[in-house]
């Protein structure tokens, strides 16, 4: 079953001069697939990810996620859509420093407001436990180690049971041990929970172990 479908997606950069970054990209991703986007710097893989993430709306072509056509939706609709259907993991954890670990995980769910506060808290604990950082739940988020913070960020990405997790260099800022841990988590999510994952990465080891590798070059998918 297709979770994501991109049809003839093109994108231009206008600074310093007009330049076509993405050239009519067709891509479809099935449910439960763990997909790595690789390629040299400047090949457009991150740009593609941000188009797929719905945050970048300045593109040509069509985008459909979870059966919903997203091309042409306005920012507010897209915000709501991201909240419910997409989880993000970035190179940096981007946890809110004033909040505890638990609060950080709960925020997207509070925004979604699908469950009661008590249920959200229980779910947040469940995700933290799954990622092995439940002990840290009540600590301020900036008191954790880098690896722990990234795991909390993954828990936060998972809290609303998204259709897709999108990762932009999710292991880019981690040592090899933590890179391994994060990969294992992604792998388990994909295998056990049928979680769709799209991750941009430079790490060949990481990419090799994923289900499917898409290599990009000069704005095109080459394999």
């Amino acid at each position, binding site marked *: 079953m297709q979770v994501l479908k991109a049809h003839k997606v093109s994108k231009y950069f206008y600074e310093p001069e007009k330049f076509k970054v993405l050239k009519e990209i067709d891509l479809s991703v099935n449910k439960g697939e763990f997909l790595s986007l690789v390629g040299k710097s400047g090949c457009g893989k991150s740009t593609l990810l941000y188009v797929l993430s719905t945050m970048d709306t300045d593109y040509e072509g069509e985008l459909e996620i979870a059966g919903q056509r997203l091309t042409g939706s306005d920012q507010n609709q897209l915000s*709501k859509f991201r909240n*419910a259907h997409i989880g993000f993991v*970035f190179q940096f954890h981007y946890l*809110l420093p*004033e909040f505890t670990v638990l609060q950080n995980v709960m925020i997207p769910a*509070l*925004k979604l407001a699908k469950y009661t506060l008590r249920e959200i808290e229980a779910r947040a604990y469940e995700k933290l436990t799954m990622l092995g950082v439940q002990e840290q739940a009540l600590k301020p988020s900036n008191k954790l180690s880098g690896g722990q913070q990234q795991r909390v960020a993954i828990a*936060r990405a998972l809290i609303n049971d998204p259709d897709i997790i999108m990762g932009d260099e999710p292991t880019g800022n981690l040592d090899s041990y933590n890179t391994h841990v994060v990969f294992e988590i992604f792998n388990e999510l994909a295998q056990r929970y049928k979680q769709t994952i799209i991750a941009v990465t430079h790490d060949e080891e990481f990419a090799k172990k994923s289900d499917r590798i898409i290599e990009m070059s000069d704005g095109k998918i080459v394999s």
Partner: protein
Amino acid sequence: MSLPFTIARTHLVSKPKQTIVAMLGVTFGIGMFIAMVSLMTGLNDMTEELAMTSSPDIRIYHDITADRPSILEHVNPQGINLVYHTKPKNESQKVRNALKIAEMIRKNPDVWGVSPQLTSQVFYNYGPVQLNGTIAGVDILEEDRLFDIKAKMKEGRIENLIVNPDGIIMGKGLARKLNAKTGDRVVITTPQGFTMTLKIVGLFQMGVGTIDNVKSYANISMVQNILQRDKSYLTDINIKLKDFHRAKAMAPQLQKTFGYKSEDWETANATMLLGVIIRNILTYSVSITLLIVAGFGIYNILNMTIMNKMKDIAILKAMGFSGSDVRKIFMIQSLIIGLIGSIAGLAVGFLLSLLIVRAPFDGGDVISIDHLPVNFEAKYYIVGIVFGVATTAIAGYMPSRKAAKVDPIEILRG
């Protein structure tokens, strides 16, 4: 509690120093506003009250200083008439048919009281002391209706004047200068040279030096007697209205009807009331300046906060917060700062006002007050809080809008 509110509160609580500094800006602005406006309106009210005690709402008199056209203008209206050194005509200050006019004015439903009277410049002699002042021949009961003299009597009663045809009620300041007491007899000398000995039967104090130090009341017939005038000689008709704000509109009508100069209290006290306007301008310009400074403070602090929180804003937007959610977070912060700062400002203003009203202040000979007048009307406190919150809302709006427009991709891509 809504999510933007929770986040806003957490932001404020996690940076207590910055939050308190921003609030203090508002507190100081509003506190000063309240203190200033309380004192200034207190002074304004006092000025108005003084104006009311020292002059009737409308005074009708014969204005002999008014410019009169030369008789040549009547005879030869088309020609060029030059008359050098014209002197005023020897005219009496008498208002003809004053009692009739008073009777007619009394019938007007807007009128509270009418007191026809005659006034004159006189010298007061007591022993070696000679002072100039004025004497007013009045029906003391009518005059009491206008100026509430009963309440202003320091010694004796106003009725003493009715039973003593040769009595006078003297301003307290004047009596002090003459070193005369109730029961003493003083000699009155008119400009025409007539003298008369009168007995002090009471002392009054209006609270204004310009009256207390110069004025006395006597019976109408006695003053007519001193001036060697007939029984119909009256020079002023003082009128008090039910609503003194109508004086300005009514005075010209009366002038037109009776042909005598009629002056309303605002015109008579124009210089005093100019002070009211200047004080209002001062109060509002200083307060607004203070609030604008506080507003810039909030603007700066919010701008800085937003700069520091770019990453947080980006991730919130990635996670599904819309622009308006983000704007709400920062607007709520500035409104909380504004609201708490303003409430604290009202408290500070109230305390300052209490201090001012307690500070001793000697009005000297001019005004008999022992402390500054301060107004504690709730109206100004409401204006203060509205001002405070509005300023912070405006100051917070621009940075908040900027936060709402943050493009998450630019920040998240690094």
